[in-house]
């Protein structure tokens, strides 16, 4: 496995891999997200308690799961970047952070929009909502740290440590609804055992989740490519890519 992975430590190889994967991710995201959203928003049955308002679940749950998924991916990249000092992993941290931050924001926003009609309030300081808000601040912290260093190597190091420390928050978000009493309900699909949602509501939800996961993947790959080009502007491979003329860059 190491032998297979090692070439991608070189940014040039990683860039090529991104170029190959990107169209697949883009197509897969459209293939999942479009039918998933149409099915979920228009054809899935209404909930017995919440009626049509529950349909915001098709945005809220995927974005909330992916805000945590993107954070895990970013933390793994930060770990590899810190221990093995692989440049493309450092760049991946910088590439994923804003995408994850946007997912967190969508999760918080749709959650508020769902909370107002159902719970009766936009926001309440319960453990689940607060820990998800902290996740947003962690993302913003990682982005700010990375940006605030002139030397990107230093910036990656600082941002990487911040990203790794923040991992503590992930189990807190997930288990907040079990450890403490909250206004937010418990987990519907991210738990062991049968999901507590009817099958014809569950399938579109899973499609939306897969679709949004591919969107996050595609955006991260694209950002990773740009980051690689930006940081290696004067390396021969970028020059070659730009047409062999250094003035053209």
């Amino acid at each position, binding site marked *: 496995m190491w032998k297979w992975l090692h070439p991608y430590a070189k940014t040039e190889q990683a860039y090529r891999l991104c170029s190959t994967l990107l169209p697949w991710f883009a197509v897969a995201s459209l293939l999942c997200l479009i039918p998933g959203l149409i099915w979920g928003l228009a054809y899935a*049955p*209404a*909930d*017995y*308690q*919440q009626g049509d308002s*529950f349909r915001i*679940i098709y945005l809220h749950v995927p974005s909330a799961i992916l805000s945590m998924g993107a954070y895990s991916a970013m933390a793994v990249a930060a*770990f590899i970047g*810190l*221990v*093995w*000092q692989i440049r493309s992993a450092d760049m991946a941290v910088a590439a994923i952070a804003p995408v994850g931050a946007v997912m967190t924001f969508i999760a918080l926003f749709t959650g508020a929009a769902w909370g107002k*009609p*159902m*719970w*009766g*309030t936009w926001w*309440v*300081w*319960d*453990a689940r909502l607060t820990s998800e808000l902290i996740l947003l601040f962690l993302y913003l912290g990682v982005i700010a740290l990375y940006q605030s260093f002139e030397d990107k190597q230093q910036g990656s190091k600082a941002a990487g*440590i911040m990203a*790794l*420390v923040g*991992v*503590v928050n992930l189990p*807190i978000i997930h288990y907040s609804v079990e*450890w*403490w*009493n*909250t*206004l937010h*309900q*418990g*987990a*519907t699909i991210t738990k062991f055992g049968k999901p*507590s*949602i*009817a099958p*014809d*509501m569950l399938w579109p939800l899973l499609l939306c989740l897969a679709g949004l996961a591919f969107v996050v993947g595609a955006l991260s790959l694209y950002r990773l490519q740009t980051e690689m080009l930006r940081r290696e502007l004067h390396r021969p491979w970028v020059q070659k890519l730009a047409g062999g003329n250094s003035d053209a860059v």
Partner: protein
Amino acid sequence: MNPRRKQRLIAVSTVVVVIGAAIGLMLYALGQNIDLFYTPSEIVQGKDGVKPRVGQRLRVGGLVVPGSVKRDENSLAVTFDLVDTGPIVQVSYQGILPDLFREGQGIVATGHLSAANQILAEEVLAKHDEEYMPPELAEAMKGIKHVKPQDANYN
């Protein structure tokens, strides 16, 4: 793994484990202060041996006892009972209730304790569970017949 990488691996892991443990202990120490609300039994019997004082501002969360909702005919005033597993607490509220409010539903009320088991609420929020299903299925599985609030016969 070469020694420098090993050193970095140990350093990074130590930082993460130590900070993780620190935050874990902090949350453990804060413990039930992170809870959003008291349950009715905690109000009546006390939580960790401490009963809330009369006059204290607090939140209470529980299920609305079926048949206990009493609305005033001339105003928005409403009283209802809350229960979890033990004693009942009575909540009085004046204002608009959320759509999901109905008998048997979980709710969270913010207010202050006016007597040992009476709460004057300023805000009532509805809680819903993590189960989603179409109305027909709910009727078949749980025997719940969904009634729109305007069709419900509260007296």
